[in-house]
């Protein structure tokens, strides 16, 4: 069955749908966790610490977190490789375009590939910035609240983040509905519901994530 | 030189295969008497099938299932596009699911009578018997026939028949049946049992030692002329209605396969029997390339009329009720708008000839739904005919709910074709003709929803049973090679013809000649025919032919995809076939079915058959282009359905 899946365009789409949904559920949790920032540094930092202690004493320190990270990396890699291979295939299947050009499909649909690339680059920056601190001058491990406030106190930090979240919203808007089609959940009667759900998810994720830099910029969080 | 019209009468042609005995047992008898080919030996036999419509597709698939090696051809890019796909109405079968008194015998009776007693009883009875199996086969293939809420098949009555025996798939029955046959054929292609050549057109028949042994065909993409050899050849290439230029046939439907077979010795039977369908959308101008049929079912609720006054150009809405002539209701009070196709068509022509036609050029009559909408409500009319009204609106840009539709008759089907015996074998041994390509079971007029039935009966059930007999009796035929003189001759003739077409470099297009011959045929060999008109046409056709070979212009070369060359080559054959059609129409001085000779009508103006003189099928033998053919008569004997004069008044 794995071979059947990976050898087929429909199978690769399935991989993308499942991995996308894994990442999407992670993002929903992540976004809700982020909102803890509004309850102050103490709450936020201890939440961040708790993440490392999930499952204790059955699991050791950070094991759960690493488990999640492994799953996420697998999802990202699966999603990206499948996307890359499918895109190559799609471009081969339609080498030359039409002489007479016209706008096709919705904006969200047309930006899936570029949006995906933007998101991949963002994730790299985001990890280097707020997880490892590699590109973050004055990064203080164990003090995420301060690190977040630092990042969103720079114009480029805000710009990168908000642009990426806009890309995320568009990606989720088409991606969620698209995943439903790929997994065969979509049908004519359910279509409106799925589209609404996709829009709601996109808006909630965007609003939730962007509320943090906005709060820092406006001084609500400092 | 003798004139073309000085035909001679040859030996009568006899159907030597039809068994005797009670009619209901003849098909069983024949199947039992037919020799069989050992299943293990079947793969050693190659059968060529030309065409992939209902008849060809079903025959190719079935022969391959039986174990024969099938080599099949279609000029379209895919076998799924054969013109059977355009049939709208439905397919008849004597299932009697409605318990309304239908039976095999009634379908047989209706078909013989509907054909105006010019069909062979044995064949028609077999057709009615097989009709039942066709539905079973198609349902099992996944053909999505209309169903009722209980999950069972729905049927409707069609073409003025009193029982409800027509199975249908909305207005796309032909499409759905063809896709069923195409799917079965596709399965055999995948299995390697059918070798399909798409975009390949048969241009000649190869006859070796008196037997059909192959074809010459042109690859339409590369222009290559190739030969293909087989133990038997089956023509399923459809009818020849396109000789009229404007018809409901597809643009590329043509007569070349059957005409070339005729030139190689196959008799052509009843060429003048053409069916003109009364409800087509009228032409809009010189540019018109084809005509579109509107389902006959519209006449169930629409009322046909023209203005009483000649040259009345007022819009329909401004013509008061008492200035309208509902001529079918007036002339045929019993049947009204539901008279058979030929009668409705002729009546429309008559009122237009009187100058009372409507629309551009006065070539149209109104089909008015105002009363139906008032009686049933717009919603009900929409539910019943919505898709047809939409189609009409798309083509004409007129709203048929607000203004009456305009309709006019158009050539639709050809009952004539290659003469075949009960085994569907032509007069060339090893050459079979099925579907519309043969002169078939419809006599002088085909009933609605019977073309699909006949195509599938021939392809799925009749031919696969009868061809065994031929192959079993000719088990070890000498292999034919390209070096055989007969093959070389056929190839050379084909190449010469194409080269000549390319070489003339004249100043007229193939279409202009096609239109000219078509208009001539419509005028003189169309809905109503007269001796003087037919003679005029017969004088004119050789002149057009001569002009054609002087003035034809075909750009490009023969070694490439060249649609002008394809077209020009088809017109060559129309220019010969047209002549035979006119001669057949001239010689048949009676009226019958779709063939109306003005000299032979009842005092009421109806078609008058003359059974004492013309109760036969006219099978013509080719003797050369423009030279008088030989007429072979097949006498028709009616043991079960006794000829009566049709009356619809």
């Amino acid at each position, binding site marked *: 069955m794995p071979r059947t899946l990976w050898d087929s365009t429909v199978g690769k789409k399935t991989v993308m749908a499942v991995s996308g949904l894994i990442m999407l559920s992670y993002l929903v949790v992540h976004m809700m966790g982020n909102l803890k920032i509004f309850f102050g540094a103490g709450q936020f930092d201890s939440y961040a610490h708790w993440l490392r202690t999930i499952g204790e004493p059955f699991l050791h320190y950070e094991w759960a977190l690493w488990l999640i990270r492994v799953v996420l990396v697998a999802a990202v890699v699966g999603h990206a490789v499948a996307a890359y291979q499918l895109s190559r295939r799609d471009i081969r299947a339609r080498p030359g375009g039409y002489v007479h050009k016209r706008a*096709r499909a919705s904006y969200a649909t047309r930006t899936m590939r570029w949006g995906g690339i933007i998101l991949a680059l963002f994730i790299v920056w985001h990890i280097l910035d707020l997880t490892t601190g590699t590109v973050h001058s004055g990064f203080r491990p164990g003090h995420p609240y301060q690190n977040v406030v630092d990042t969103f106190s720079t114009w480029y930090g805000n710009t990168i983040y908000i642009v990426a979240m806009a890309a995320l919203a568009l990606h989720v808007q088409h991606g969620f509905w698209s995943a439903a089609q790929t997994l065969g959940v979509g049908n004519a009667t359910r279509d409106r519901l799925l589209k609404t759900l996709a829009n709601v998810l996109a808006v909630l994720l965007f609003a939730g994530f962007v509320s943090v830099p906005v709060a820092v910029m406006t001084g609500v969080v400092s | 030189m003798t004139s073309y019209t000085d035909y001679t009468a040859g030996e009568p042609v006899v159907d030597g295969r039809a068994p005797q005995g009670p009619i209901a047992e003849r098909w069983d008898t024949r199947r039992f008497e037919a020799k069989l080919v050992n299943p293990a030996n079947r793969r050693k036999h190659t059968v060529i099938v030309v065409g992939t419509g209902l008849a060809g597709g079903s025959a190719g698939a079935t022969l391959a299932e039986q174990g024969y090696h099938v080599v099949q051809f279609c000029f379209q890019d895919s076998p799924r596009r054969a013109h059977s796909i355009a049939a709208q109405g439905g397919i008849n079968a004597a299932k009697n699911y409605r318990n309304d008194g239908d039976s095999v015998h009634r379908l047989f009776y209706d078909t013989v009578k509907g054909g105006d007693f010019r069909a062979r009883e044995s064949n028609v009875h077999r057709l009615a018997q097989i009709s039942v199996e066709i539905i079973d086969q198609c349902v099992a293939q996944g053909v999505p026939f209309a169903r009722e809420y209980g999950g069972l098949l729905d049927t409707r009555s069609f073409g003025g028949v009193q029982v409800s025996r027509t199975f249908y798939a909305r207005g796309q029955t032909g499409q759905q049946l063809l896709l069923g046959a195409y799917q079965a054929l596709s399965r055999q292609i995948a299995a390697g049992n059918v070798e399909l050549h798409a975009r390949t057109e048969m241009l000649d028949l190869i006859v070796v030692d008196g037997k059909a042994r192959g074809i010459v065909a042109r690859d339409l993409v590369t222009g290559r002329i190739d030969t293909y050899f087989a133990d038997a050849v089956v023509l399923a290439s459809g009818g020849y209605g396109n000789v009229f230029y404007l018809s409901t046939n597809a643009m*590329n439907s043509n007569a070349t396969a059957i005409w070339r077979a005729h030139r190689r010795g196959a008799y052509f039977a009843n060429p003048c029997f053409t069916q003109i369908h009364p409800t087509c959308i009228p032409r809009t101008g010189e540019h018109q390339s084809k005509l579109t049929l509107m389902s006959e079912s519209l006449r169930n609720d629409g009322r046909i009329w023209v203005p009483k006054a000649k040259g009345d150009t007022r819009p329909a809405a401004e013509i008061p009720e008492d200035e309208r002539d509902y001529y079918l209701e007036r002339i045929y009070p019993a049947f009204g708008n539901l008279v058979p196709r030929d009668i409705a068509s002729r009546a429309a022509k008559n009122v237009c000839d009187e100058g009372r036609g409507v629309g551009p050029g006065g070539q149209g009559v109104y089909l008015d739904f105002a009363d139906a909408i008032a009686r049933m409500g717009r919603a009900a009319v929409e539910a019943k005919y919505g898709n047809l009204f939409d189609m009409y609106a798309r083509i004409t840009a007129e709203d048929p709910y607000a203004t009456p539709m305009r309709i006019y008759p158009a050539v639709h089907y050809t009952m004539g074709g290659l003469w075949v015996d009960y085994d569907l074998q032509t007069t060339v041994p090893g050459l079979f003709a099925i579907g519309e390509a043969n002169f078939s079971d419809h006599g002088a007029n085909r009933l609605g929803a019977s073309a699909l039935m006949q195509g599938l009966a021939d392809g799925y059930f009749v031919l696969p049973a009868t061809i065994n007999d031929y192959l079993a009796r000719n088990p070890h035929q000498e292999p034919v090679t390209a070096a055989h003189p007969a093959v070389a001759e056929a190839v050379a003739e084909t190449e010469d013809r194409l080269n000549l077409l390319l070489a003339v470099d004249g100043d007229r297009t193939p*279409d202009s000649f096609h239109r000219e011959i078509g208009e001539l045929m419509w005028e003189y060999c169309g809905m109503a025919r007269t001796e003087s008109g037919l003679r005029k046409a017969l004088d004119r056709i050789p002149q057009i032919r001569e002009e054609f070979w002087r003035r034809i212009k075909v750009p490009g070369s023969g070694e490439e995809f060249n649609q002008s060359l394809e077209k020009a080559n088809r017109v060559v054959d129309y220019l010969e076939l047209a002549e035979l059609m006119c001669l057949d129409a001239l010689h048949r001085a009676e009226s019958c079915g779709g063939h109306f000779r003005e000299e032979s009508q009842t005092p009421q103006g109806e078609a008058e058959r003359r059974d004492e003189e013309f109760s036969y099928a006219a099978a013509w033998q080719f003797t050369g282009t423009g030279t008088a053919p030989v007429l072979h008569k097949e006498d028709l004997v009616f043991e079960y359905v006794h000829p009566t004069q049709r009356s619809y008044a």
Partner: protein
Amino acid sequence: MKLTLRVWRQKNADSPGAMATYEVDDISADMSFLEMLDTLNEELTLRGEEPVAFDHDCREGICGACSLVINGDAHGPERTTTCQLHMRSFSDGDTIDVEPWRASAFPVVKDLVVDRSSFDRIIQAGGYISVPTGAAPEAHATPVPKPDADVAFEHAECIGCGACVAACPNGSAMLFTSAKVNHLNVLPQGAPERETRVLDMVGQMDDEGFGGCTLTGECATACPKGIPLPSIAAMNKEWLRATRKARKVGR
């Protein structure tokens, strides 16, 4: 009306093509688009030039032969086949671009004619019910619920024209393939081959070099027969179901 046509001309599969410009005059609004091209071709023939090659046959919107991209739209601005598109959809003085279907799996044969035999091979891979002639049970032996019969019909309406592929930015044949899979898989007669059918047809579709589906919906918008986009989801569902079952039966 008078029109300027820019038409893709390409001698054969191996030659490069380019747009060529032609003027046509005296075009009637009642002409179909193909009759307008007939007019052009008559003029070209008389001028000794090669007429524009294009596929067409029934001209009633059912055979699926006609296949033109007109001003960037498969079958042009109306939701119908090219043969049923009339010139009243255009205005005097318009410039109209006419191109062939574009997809690797539909190589150009000449001018506006493409090779769609890949569609036939998808059907050959499993788009049928295996029932040899004569082996069919009585038609009423298996009633089919009307809703199922209607779904089957809705999908069976596909004419195999390829507009879905032409319109798809990925050159994907998912809508075409799903139409046949759904037509046959929803019927009880199609049940025995339900799994192999979808797996084999999707496999063949991939082998032919069609692109994958990104659910842009362009195919369903272009489809002259209105095969709906959810057909694709329904086929995906069939495919996943078949993949799970295929493991069990060791296929």
